[in-house]
């Protein structure tokens, strides 16, 4: 069972983290643009 939890945990954590980083980067770009205007 530990192997199954490890595999699914890895997939969920990686994809969530990647999505979070993309969203953070997007907000950084959009907020930077609104400040410059």
């Amino acid at each position, binding site marked *: 069972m530990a192997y199954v939890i490890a595999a699914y945990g890895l997939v969920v954590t990686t994809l969530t983290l990647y999505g979070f980083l993309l969203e953070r980067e997007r907000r950084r770009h959009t907020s930077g*643009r609104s400040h410059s205007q």
Partner: protein
Amino acid sequence: MQAGVLDRAAAHLRLPSLLALLAFSAVYAIAVISAPEDAVQGVIQKILYVHPACAFAAYLGFGLTALGGALYLWREDEQYDRLALASAEVGVVFCTLVILTGPIWARGTWGRWWSWDPRLTVTLLLWFVYLAYLLLRSFTEGSTRAARFAAVYGITGVLAIPLNYFAIDLFGGRAIHPENLGRGSLGAGMGLPFALGMATLLLAFLHLLARRLELESLRARDGFPEPQARSGPARAEGSWPT
């Protein structure tokens, strides 16, 4: 930079795709938990509901990299180059998950983390091919010449996908990786979690691809503005690096 149809679609589908992904993930989790245990492998067989789905998402990413590259060479529209780059990055994320979840299953089934089996070796090769693509793009950001070279590289690299998929058939008896799934190869009650795994990971791929595409569009807009939109001290004509 002009926003293309792909950029607009990516921005508009942000919330609907996230909600669909969350709904599918919940149903998928219930289906995996309630799926019957395999008589031979036991509970570790449940990794099957995520590992091949990640592989198909990676294939799709690399396929879209080739398609985006081909469309960029044909139409010379930057939105296709952004599609190629975004697809390659998301594809590499999913390919990394294939390379990580596979050994977890192998450790529990074969008793070892890795084997230089044809499928495993070609998967590692595929991962390196697209990692090299991303490195090339990161070192040559904004260069049209590099984008053209990357398009050709992405089109050529996609040849590794059929090699990866048919590696078991091509190398016959030397392969220890389980065969590709065919009709009737899943036991009773295993088809639904497998199909839901494919659908959920495909949705996750499309959601992340749309987010990555949106980000690439913002980077292109901020990093390479139109000449009339440039601000700050003016540089002498001809002083830009060529």
